[in-house]
């Protein structure tokens, strides 16, 4: 049975460990104590479990008197958020099923379908809270024989962006929608792994064994173009900007694009859209920082087209939404297109004002 003094020493070492202040020598001593006795291991587990509860519980309603005035502040792991997030996954599953059903319905009733009115890229700059309302409206519309509303690439990419912003704000990523990665002072919500496919349609990944499969293009007859937009990542700079005294970073995003062989006369254009956001009162608002670069691709499936975009973040930027765009303009855009589009080697690099670099991540 460990002595009181040993138990105190253990608690002190665990406290240092949990605060990331433990030295190498102290860590060796802690390992020794844990190896030495089962009672020490049980005490260690109790302390770490209590720590987990403290982080979790302090954001829960049981600690109401502390949280009642700070409901809009993001908190780690609130239980109700998890419940609602998993509920959202269930809703999303039904949504996905509806899209699937709608797309089948579309093919059989194509002649009855009315297409969306043309939009500009600036459609991405609106507040995303509004987009959710749009989406629920369009779900209703789909029952009135306008199912293409659900497949609008702007809405799909906006929904993904909102998922990412909400996940980062609440620190809860619904695993069905994306994962949160920690890169030191920067967090990133990333759905690239959910979009990844191995080599297919004659395209080999540029790097590694998988690449991002971009969505099929959505044809807009009135605007005379076909377009697909995929929000792939959302980067959270809040911690970096809070702790860094070096002003606001520039962010460079690089990606490579390719298209498979298919019945298409012309190559698509590829683009990267970077949109800055901030959060206020639980709502996400796009700032004026929007960068969109695009470049024509080629029909050679063996070569990857590189694209790079840089954005200087303004003072009020908290998040950056990264979207990949595939686009075709003109009459060829309206023809049957069996090409598939891919992206790979997506890299995000931050350059701070003192020229220190974070990434590429």
């Amino acid at each position, binding site marked *: 049975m460990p002595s009181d003094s040993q138990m105190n020493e253990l608690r002190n070492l665990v406290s240092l460990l949990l*605060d990331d202040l433990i030295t190498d020598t102290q860590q060796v001593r802690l390992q020794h104590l844990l190896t030495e006795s089962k009672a020490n*291991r049980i005490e260690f587990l109790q302390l770490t479990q209590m720590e987990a509860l403290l982080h979790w519980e302090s954001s829960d309603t049981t600690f109401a008197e502390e949280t009642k005035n700070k409901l809009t502040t993001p908190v780690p792991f609130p239980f109700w958020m998890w419940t609602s997030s998993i509920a959202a996954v269930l809703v999303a599953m039904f949504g996905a099923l509806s899209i699937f059903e709608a797309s089948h319905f579309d093919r059989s009733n194509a002649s009855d379908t009315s297409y969306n009115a043309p939009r500009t890229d600036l459609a991405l700059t609106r507040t995303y809270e509004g987009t959710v309302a749009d989406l629920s409206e369009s779900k209703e519309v789909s029952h009135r024989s306008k199912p293409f509303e659900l497949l609008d690439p702007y809405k799909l990419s906006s929904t993904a962006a909102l998922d990412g912003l909400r996940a980062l704000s609440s620190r809860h990523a619904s695993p069905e929608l994306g*994962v949160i990665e920690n890169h030191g002072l920067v967090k990133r919500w990333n759905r690239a792994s959910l979009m990844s496919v191995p080599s297919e349609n004659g395209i080999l990944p540029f790097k590694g064994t998988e690449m991002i499969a971009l969505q099929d293009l959505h044809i807009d007859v009135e605007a005379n173009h076909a377009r697909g937009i995929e929000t792939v990542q959302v980067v959270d700079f809040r911690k970096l900007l809070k702790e860094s005294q070096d002003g606001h970073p520039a962010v460079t995003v690089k990606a490579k694009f390719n298209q498979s062989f298919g019945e298409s006369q012309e190559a698509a254009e590829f683009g990267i859209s970077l949109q800055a956001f901030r959060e206020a009162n639980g709502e996400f608002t796009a700032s004026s920082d929007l960068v969109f670069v695009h470049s024509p691709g080629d029909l050679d499936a063996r070569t990857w087209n590189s694209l790079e975009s840089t954005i200087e973040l303004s003072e009020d930027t908290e998040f950056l939404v990264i979207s990949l765009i595939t686009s075709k303009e003109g009459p060829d855009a309206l023809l049957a297109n069996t090409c598939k589009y891919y992206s790979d080697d997506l890299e995000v690099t931050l350059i701070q004002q003192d020229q220190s670099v974070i990434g590429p991540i």
Partner: protein
Amino acid sequence: MSSESISFEFSQKLVGLQKPLYAFVLSLVHNRSDAEDILQETNLILCKKSSEYNPEGNFQSWAFRIARFQVMAHLTKKRRSKICFSNEIVDALVEEEFDLKRFQRMQKALQICYEKLPEHLREIARLRFKEDSSLKGIAKMVNRPIGSISASLFRIRENLSKCVKIRMIHIEAESDF
């Protein structure tokens, strides 16, 4: 994964197990950001493998087994850059079976004990555990040296640990009664 494959029962069980899973992972990796990442990865794998789950089986032990694999993979990666616990210690810690009922008692006890913290310690606890502030940040906010904040956090954990142990005995006795 097919979108229809997660049953309501499965999602309910997954929601109910988030706190214990997080506590289990944190006990092995000791770093909150890492624990959050591993929990997310574990959730993702659990959802992907939901079709393999037998409703008659033990969901908790299945989920913990997957979390353990994720922790081991994480530690293997991390060992290359930083000192962390040896495999033997991690194995020994994992062998101490996670008692869900005991964990729930701890949760109740902690709620009571947290209320009993002296005001000055509770403010530090709020900044650290709720606001997720760094020690450096807290030191700046309350205008005290980092060493003093570290000592306060040690005292908070010690007070809570001792109080929770006593309370858990009462709670267990009440539930037996």
